């Protein structure tokens, strides 16, 4: 391969060639830093030193040394490590050391997915082999051969698994794992930042159960977590594990200078504020980088986009036979294919790789020179991880952010300091959720009877156990609560689904090849997956043929029609309990529990472009009730507003507010709902309700309760700053022309945010 062209030369082209430069809104650089090294610890086992030497390592980065020392002194810790900073040595070294010092020592490695565990096993095997020692390490998951399982249980030194397997395959059968639990020295939690929201809350309980079992067998393992950069690694780790944790933030790995380019595709439809497709822009930029020989990774949000970009990029190489310089990379690749891509990247055979966010997780593909993000990945932490893929050691790296016509994307273009200047979001979990807590309390009771004085994690559970007794699940004897039904509680609890009963979407276009293409929470499903609904999945239209509400399955077939469907959902909100309230001037924000009763009524078929109503039908589904936590903001009708005008403005404002929630709490758009009511029963005033989509709530609305003023201000500023004329999907949702809705919404939001009125 010819000598690589330095990144800054390409940067020069981008900034001077008018077809690119006019769209570059901002350009920033972040300085690089030198590596900080440390000697090997004195007690480090010679076999480990030998293994490291064979990989060309003769000293450690400072954070790896610090990790070893904390672990050796029995302190649990979290190491915050950017991509490619040698994070796995932070745990491999102390774990291997403990096994070489005492052959009975055991360790559990927990990875968020099965694939990641299998991937890491290869890496670990390599290190063990180089050490010349016998350390048995296995993955234990659904793929583990039955014949191997008993060997893993009895003699595996290191067991690599995932939370789901721990939850339903290991903990309920702990009596088969005595030698593991008696000798457990370390529990490794890799990719800590992925344990957030509902999934993280479940995992927090799985870990409380794990600690309870360890305690029963007399072990007190040290926890080692590694995390991508998030705002609150210590808080997350401590609430996940319910123990004091140290944090290693000073990373000794070197980093090169990073060039950030913020690129906004040109506006092609001023009225609706529509810009040129980000995918096409990415294609052109990537083609430039490809021609200049810059190794590049392109991130796209969906598989379809990945495929589109791969097709575009391959066009550049179509004249060459067997050319593999452009590769796609998305979920579902086999380890062998990954190895091939990895190798191709390392050796320079692959010049461009297009990926979904699968690569955000710690899969090792080495480091590239440039990274292109097709749109904002939804949160800063992910953006950091994607950006972290570019930059080899001390080399300079180029990161190009290409915005899409979406609210958050455009916000980032306007406020690059949001991405660069501040720390990434907090990752939050909410183990207090009653539903999650009770589910795992059952599992814990099944695993070991609770004593009549015992606590569970940080919870006083005696009253809850009495409740379970009244439900017929437990039996109380003199000093213990015993499990006494023939059910297996872990099989009734899934760690992954946001709600226990998501609706599964099944594509039956080809009857012999039905496949699951997605899932949706019950609530959204009522309006989006009712029979005859047009469901759009990654740009393809499907019609819902059948919705089996009891089984929670929606059967869809691909169609090609010129309309979409819009359903009306009658939502009734009932405040059950107001826990807290705060005044914002004359307005009031409150927080508490609500019951949401939703009844779908009718749906309309609406033609694209003209938005004509071309038909309608009833939806016959039972009402759904959701008990969750909520925050609401009520205000007096502003002077000069009529009821009808206010209703419309509040609807637009709710749209804008909803788009900005991910700026304040790390969650997906569907984790939270915003409902405007022009006269709420509870307050008697116009009120915005924001509630968690998950039964019992997962702490999202509680967080927003403290930040209403900020949220309203952000939404207000964004609506005014949006370049469309009268409302577009980027700000308040698509509007019919000629209505001054955008002005109304902006004015309402500014009023509420306490700013000047009538800014527009």
């Amino acid at each position: 391969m010819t000598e690589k062209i330095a990144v800054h030369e390409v940067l020069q082209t981008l900034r001077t060639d008018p077809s690119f430069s006019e769209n570059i809104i901002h350009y920033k650089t972040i300085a690089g830093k030198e590596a900080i090294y440390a000697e090997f610890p004195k007690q480090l086992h010679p076999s480990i030193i030998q293994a490291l030497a064979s990989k060309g390592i003769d000293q450690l980065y400072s954070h790896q040394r610090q990790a070893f020392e904390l672990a050796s002194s029995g302190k649990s810790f979290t190491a915050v490590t950017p991509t490619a900073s040698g994070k796995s040595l932070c745990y491999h070294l102390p774990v291997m050391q403990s096994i070489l010092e005492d052959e009975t020592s055991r360790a559990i490695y927990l990875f968020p997915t099965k694939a990641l565990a299998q991937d890491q096993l290869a890496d670990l095997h390599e290190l063990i082999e180089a050490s010349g020692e016998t350390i048995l390490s296995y993955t234990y998951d659904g793929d583990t051969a039955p014949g191997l399982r008993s060997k893993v249980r009895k003699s595996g030194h290191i067991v690599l698994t995932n939370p789901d397997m721990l939850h339903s395959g290991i903990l309920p059968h702990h009596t088969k794992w005595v030698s593991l639990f008696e000798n457990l020295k370390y529990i490794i939690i890799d990719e800590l930042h992925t344990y957030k929201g509902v999934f993280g809350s479940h995992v927090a309980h799985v870990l409380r159960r794990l600690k309870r079992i360890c305690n029963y067998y007399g072990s007190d393992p040290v926890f080692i977590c590694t995390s991508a950069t998030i705002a609150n690694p210590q808080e997350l780790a401590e609430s996940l594990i319910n123990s004091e944790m140290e944090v290693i933030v000073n990373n000794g790995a070197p980093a090169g200078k990073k060039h950030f380019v913020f690129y906004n595709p040109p506006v092609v439809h001023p009225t609706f504020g529509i810009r040129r497709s980000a995918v096409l822009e990415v294609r052109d930029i990537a083609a430039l980088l490809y021609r200049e020989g810059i190794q590049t990774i392109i991130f796209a949000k969906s598989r379809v986009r990945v495929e589109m970009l791969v097709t575009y990029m391959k066009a550049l190489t179509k004249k060459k036979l067997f050319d593999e310089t452009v590769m796609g990379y998305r979920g579902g690749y086999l380890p062998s294919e990954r190895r091939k891509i990895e190798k191709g990247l390392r050796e320079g055979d692959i010049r461009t790789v297009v990926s979904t966010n699968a690569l955000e997780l710690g899969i090792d593909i080495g480091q590239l020179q440039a990274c292109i993000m097709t749109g904002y990945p939804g949160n800063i932490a992910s953006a950091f991880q994607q950006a972290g893929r570019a930059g080899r050691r001390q080399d300079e790296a180029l990161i190009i952010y290409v915005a899409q016509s979406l609210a958050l994307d455009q916000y980032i273009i306007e406020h690059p300091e949001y991405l660069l200047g501040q720390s990434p979001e907090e990752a939050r979990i909410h183990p207090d959720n009653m539903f999650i807590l009770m589910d795992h309390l059952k599992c814990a009771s099944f695993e070991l009877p609770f004593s009549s004085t015992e606590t569970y994690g940080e919870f006083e559970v005696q009253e809850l156990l009495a409740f379970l007794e009244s439900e017929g699940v437990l039996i109380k004897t003199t000093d213990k609560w015993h499990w006494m039904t023939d059910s297996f509680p872990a099989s009734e609890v899934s760690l992954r689904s946001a709600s226990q009963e998501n609706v599964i979407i099944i594509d039956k276009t080809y009857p012999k090849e039905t496949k699951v293409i997605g899932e949706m929470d019950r609530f959204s499903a009522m309006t989006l997956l009712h029979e005859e609904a047009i469901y759009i999945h990654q740009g393809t239209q499907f019609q819902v043929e059948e919705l089996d509400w009891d089984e929670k399955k929606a059967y869809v077939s691909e169609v090609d029609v010129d309309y979409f469907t819009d359903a009306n959902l009658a939502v009734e909100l009932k405040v059950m309990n107001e826990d807290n309230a705060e005044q914002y001037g004359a307005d009031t924000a409150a927080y508490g529990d609500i019951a949401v009763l939703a009844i779908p009524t009718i749906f309309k078929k609406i033609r694209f472009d003209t938005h004509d109503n071309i038909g309608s039908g009833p939806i016959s589904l039972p009402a759904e009730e959701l008990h969750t936590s909520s925050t609401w903001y009520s205000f007096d009708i502003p002077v000069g507003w009529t009821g009808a005008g206010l209703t419309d403005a509040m609807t637009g404002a709710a749209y804008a507010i909803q788009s900005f929630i991910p700026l304040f709490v790390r969650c997906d758009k569907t984790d939270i709902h915003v409902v405007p009511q022009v006269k709420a029963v509870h307050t008697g005033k116009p009120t915005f309700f924001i509630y968690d989509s998950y039964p019992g709530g997962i702490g999202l609305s509680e967080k927003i309760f403290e930040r209403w003023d900020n949220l309203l201000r952000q939404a207000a500023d964004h609506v005014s700053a949006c370049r469309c004329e009268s409302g577009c999907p980027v700000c308040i949702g698509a509007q019919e022309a000629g209505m001054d809705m955008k002005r109304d919404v902006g004015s309402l939001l500014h009023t509420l945010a306490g700013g000047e009125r009538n800014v527009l």
Partner: protein
Amino acid sequence: MSYEQKLMQMKKMLKKTDNKATPETVAKVVKVAAEPPFYEQEWLDAGLTKAVNKHGIVYKRIVEYDADHHHGNIALSGLKSTIDKWRTSGEVHPLSPDFSKQLLFFDTETTGLKGAGTLIFLMGFLEQTASSFKMTQYVLPGPNHEAAFLYETGLWEKPSTLVTYNGKSFDIPMVETRWTMNRRELPPLLDHTQIDLLHGSRRIWKGEMATFRLPAIEEEQLGFYREGDIPGHMAPIIYQDAVKNGRAELLMKVLVHNEWDILSLVALYIRSTDLLLKTDILDSANTHTNIGKWFGDLKSYGRSKQILKSVIAEYGINHPATHYHFGFIQKREQDYEVAASSFRIAADGLTGRDQIIALEELAKLYEHKLKELTKALEATNEAIRLLKTDTRLTEKFRMRSGNEFKKREIRINRKLFPGQARESTEKG
């Protein structure tokens, strides 16, 4: 009020401890033997007796059977000669007992199917005494009496041979789990010899039974029909109920269910042993062929041959599968002529995969041992034709076997007609 609503109400009562310390160490809890349950008298009135040991209390039921007791159409008294038969046979066989240990017929009833939260609430053992049979059933007085319950069984005291039905995958691992859950109090569980009659039944009656559930075996093989039995899957609910409200009538029915299970174990053991070790034909040709094959797989070739031979003596060529297995035995013994005629009978009488394999063996024998190349070629061509037409065979088998026969055909042709080998290869 819905479960959801109840939980939302409880939310207000949720209290947290402020410490992040480890939970209370269970080891520190001083163990005191649990008090008898409130329903003790009711359970004793129902027919249980009470035993006390150093870990607390346990309930028992003992039933003795006369020496001439019959279960179905099998006399329990046959057990003595069953054991003698094994002793004199000298066979190393999964159903052969360890003569140094006591033979115990064993079955459990549990509160669920798997996991650390499933309890054993009933363990029954049947042993042979000097003059009769004695069944001892131990009943768990309540979930807090487990240590005494497990201790009383003596499974920690004396190694024995446990005869079970599916015990290898269910009862024994379950006992191990319960033992682990009580290991602070109990002496270690001993390693007992296991005889799993489910495994044996599957070998013996392969192709004879649609299901190997114990009641089916009882009806078809032992002549025992249950009347007024409670279904096994009801047992967990019945025990749960008995502990909650103290009533024991239904629980006693579970004890009878367990008793029948164990009596069936004895009868099944006698019956299985007779089939395995008696030389006369007691069952179908298929059953005895299964048995002959089983001995062959266990490398007890002499007995295997003897059994297959007597089936052939009885049924002649009417049961070709016997000849198929007999062929392998003869081939082992290098009696190639007899082996070939056995495989010929098998190839003519069998269908499917076994037929092809019989032809393969025939071809091998004729080509390499008997040096009758024409016959080898005939068998090969027959197999090739069948592989083409018999659609019941799996695609994978047809591919793999087909390739091998093709190679064989070319090779035999080359040997038969050295000059034309080339041509034949090209055609092939």
